């Protein structure tokens, strides 16, 4: 266990106060469950001068249901999300993803917002200060080089959240709040393909609400991740699948991936399968398409080719499962 830096702790009670504090306080960071961020703080990756604790902001703790769908506060814990019957029934992949995060203790602290905004991960980055210094740091933090792809100019640290791909296949949106106002954007739009800077969120903006639209809730969805151990582990590769079928033909298929790119990737070109009969050959084609869009790098101890391979296998298996279920 390494040292915590000296920091001021703020505990706002509403969103407006939270974003105001964040704007006014130099070097401040939001903290909700802290299951990932505090580890990074102890490792010296983050050295916040102040933490803005969101656990007392009521708006962020609520799940609201209306005609548009479910509106989930960013500080709702993964445990509550996973246990919500409305989520389980209408957005199954989301509930399954929440259950797949780390272990039960993490789920009881970790939050929806935290998992969506999870920092990208890499073996050469998620290490102690002594370790990173002994290894000349890396371009994601204090250094110039990439140990994963030496000579490269890009950072390949992998996005490793479980909830994001599940929410993406349900066309989720999020509310971003800052001192200057609130905007609602598609979840897919808050990510970009850059391991160093994967969140397209303005500095100080707070992800306040996850919207799961009702229009997308009628179809079955599911999520699975590959990992070495059945608990604790971040995904080596993960896929969420959403399927709308009429008879034995695909109406619409959506697949989103995690842990194989610096951002959660909504698989492209799946519309080519619309109207196609779902058989073994098509399943193989789907797997191949998924694999071709997954770009895992040497960011974990498990080989990249395996992660690519297995993400295709999982997508294939889940698609077949949903098809049989409907």
């Amino acid at each position, binding site marked *: 266990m390494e040292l915590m830096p000296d920091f001021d702790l703020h505990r706002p009670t509403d969103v407006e106060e939270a974003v105001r504090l964040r704007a006014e306080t130099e070097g401040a960071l939001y903290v909700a469950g802290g299951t990932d961020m505090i580890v990074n703080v102890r490792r010296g990756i983050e050295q916040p001068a102040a933490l803005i604790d969101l656990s007392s902001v009521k708006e962020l703790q609520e799940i609201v249901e209306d005609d548009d769908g479910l509106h989930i506060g960013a500080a709702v814990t993964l445990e509550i999300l996973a246990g919500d019957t409305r989520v389980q029934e209408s957005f199954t992949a989301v509930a399954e993803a929440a259950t797949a995060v780390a272990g039960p203790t993490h789920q009881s602290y970790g939050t929806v917002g935290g998992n969506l905004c999870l920092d990208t991960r890499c073996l050469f980055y998620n290490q102690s200060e*002594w*370790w990173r210094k002994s*290894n000349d740091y890396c371009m994601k933090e204090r250094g110039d080089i990439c140990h994963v792809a030496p000579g490269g100019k890009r950072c390949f640290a992998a996005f490793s959240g479980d909830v994001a791909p599940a929410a993406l296949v349900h066309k989720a949106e999020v509310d971003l709040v800052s001192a200057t106002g609130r905007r609602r954007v598609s979840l897919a739009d808050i990510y970009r393909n850059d391991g160093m800077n994967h969140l397209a969120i303005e500095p100080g903006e707070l992800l306040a609400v996850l919207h799961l639209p009702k229009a997308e809730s009628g179809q079955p969805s599911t999520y699975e991740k590959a990992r070495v*151990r059945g608990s*604790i582990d971040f995904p080596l590769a993960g896929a969420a699948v959403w399927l709308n079928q009429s008879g034995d033909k695909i109406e619409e298929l959506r697949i989103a991936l995690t842990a194989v790119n610096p951002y959660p990737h909504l698989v492209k070109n799946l519309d080519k399968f619309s109207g196609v009969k779902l058989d073994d050959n098509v399943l193989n084609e789907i797997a191949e398409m998924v694999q071709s869009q997954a770009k895992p790098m040497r960011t974990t*101890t498990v080989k990249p080719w395996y992660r690519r391979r*297995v993400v295709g296998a*999982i997508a294939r298996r889940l698609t077949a499962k949903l098809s049989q279920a409907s």
Partner: protein
Amino acid sequence: MNENMPIDPEKVEPVKSIGVPMPLVDGPEKVSGKANYTADFVEKDALVGRILRSPVSHAEILSIEIAAAEALPGVVAVVTGEDFVGQFGVLPIARTEWPIARDRVRYRGEPIAAVAAVEVETAQKALDLIEFEYEELPAYFTAEDAMAEGVTPLHEKRPNNVERHVEYDLGEVDKGFEDAALIREGTYDCAEVCQVQTEPHAAIAAYDGERDQITVHASTQVPYYVHLMLEQTLGMPRSKIRVIKPHIGGGFGSRTECLHVELVAGALARKCKGTVRITLSREETFITHRGRPEQKTTLKMGMSKDGRITAVDTTTTQRGGAYAGYGTVTILYSGSMVFALYDIRNARYNGYRVLTNTPPCGAFRGHGTVNVRFAFESLMDDMATELGLDPFEVRRKNLLEAPTFTANDLMVNSYGLPECLDIVEKASDWKKRKGKMEPFRGLGIACSHYVSGASKPVNWTGEPHATVNIKLDFDGSLTILTGAPEIGQGSSTILTQCVAEVLGLDVTRIRIVTSDSLVTPKDNGAYSSRVTYMVGNAAIDAATNLKTILTEAAARKMDVQPEDVECLGEVYRAGSQDQGMTFEEVVYAALEGTGTITARGNFDTIPESWGGDKYRGAAIGGSMAFSYAAQVVEIAIDPDTADIHVEKVWVAHDCGKALNPLSVEGQIEGSVWMGMGQAMTEETRYHNGLGITGNMLDYRVPTIIESPPIETHIVESNDPHGPFGAKEAGEASLAGFLPALTNAIADALDIRVSELPTTPDRLMEIMEDKKRESRKSEKEKAGA
């Protein structure tokens, strides 16, 4: 028993403790969180110690500039290698390690300085102010690289970086191969693994400047060796040193030798004439290491048509890390323990322990035996398959007949392996199911064994192997005083049960004080599964001596001959009609004239068990008793992900006699489970010598989800020299899991996995290779 109740001697009988499943005597403190571990002893004036570690793998130290750190307000002391007068190391022949590096650093993370300060922030700031100047040297991260021509030696005395080459050639190996119907050879690779015990290392040292005395609390399995190394490295007389081992959160060999942390804490405390507490992080605990080495084994075996092993030729190489540690013993064990499981007459061995620029390896549970056993049981299975023999039958063809001496002179007195085999064969329904499993499912079997303490101690002093004292006073309570370190393995419970059984008393009348050099008799420590066997025997001896004293006192009071006195535990009487004396009355009688009684018991190994002198180092492996285990592993493999799911494990362990069946069961389960970790998921990896898996996310110890149902069976072969017939119970069941798993994979997929751990990416790679091969051969067939 309530002391105020009148005793009816008709109803009194000695209380049984041996063979009774009972919870551990130190359980209540542990489950309620009251137990104090080393890091819990926070004294008010304790300073915080922190260690600066080398950022490079191999370098000459040019200078370590500490003046700025010393000048920082709040810093009380800074120490470097110059603050020590001697090197340390567990083997008297290989004390090559400085508590803090001097002249040279040999692995990334080796201590180069340490600081004591009033609080942790200041200590860290001080470390940042220390300037380390060095000149890098070539570094070697594999055994192969370290042994190559023209290398820079890590240690002057080892020009080719081979710490130790062990060889033997026993029986007629060449003739054995000539006689064989089938000869096969295979190469097997095991990754380096770490113990990852619950409690990271910690030490607190308190120096008394008035008296020049030091007291060290240490999270160690070997307080006596810590005591010796404090003497040796600090240059203090041993009479001025006190070592205390508090509760320990597991060891598994990680603390079977003195570590830097105790010695650095000692040096800091002395320099600042105060108390210094050092708690290592998990990463530092990984760096301290002393785990099982990366090891490559090439094994050649000859077998007759009916499965009899005719000859074995083993070559094995261990990447030992930067210092000797226990390494010589590890490479000797790998050779000596080729024997004593099966009847092998002809065997050749070449073992190489190699020095590399990685953290030093040590004595991990199953010390030295595990990786070679993996090779042996794998090849044996493949050859059985090739000869069309059942894996059980091949093993039965090669059984020993006890009592016997093996070809390398190991003394085997009790041998429950045949029964272990019978039990797991039946329990797993092997005969009906083997070879008839559904696709992607398989069954595998393997055997393993271990010593019950090394008959020759590391430090030969002429003292008995074990000494136990029992104190009995006016209050009628018994206190066992033992140096044997309770490290979570249950030794305090076993010693209590041994004493209780001899005296026929309930265990609640007995308390136990362990591992405080001020109070308890010296003990060599908790390693090589010596405690139950050796200290258990000493406890029985002490209790027997106490019983003699009590019986004689009772005889005097009752005016009868001692042989006429019957001990019923709470009552001593002369004949069944006698009202008798209560235990308290006997105690008073015994104290008359002498006062407080201390009864002593000893244990010594017999020379026949010392292992002989058939080759240099043959004493390693010599033991008074060997334990045996057989296990069947059933698996299911996910064809999409190559995930292996262990469906069930059936394991039978011959522990001689289960002194506490509950505790034995726990030890067997723990061994199987730890073997599973090494076999499936665990691996320390390095990036240019920098440990890249030094945390519990990237070093993947299995979780409870991976834990399979383990059906344990206890076999009791009643060892003639063991305490109540007992042998070791905590190690032998580990090694068998590895080959039982890969044998199950062979059954499921017709694939031989010879590289561990079998992570899904490794297995999928092999599955893919096989698919490609079979497609290729189909094409060739079609083409032909």
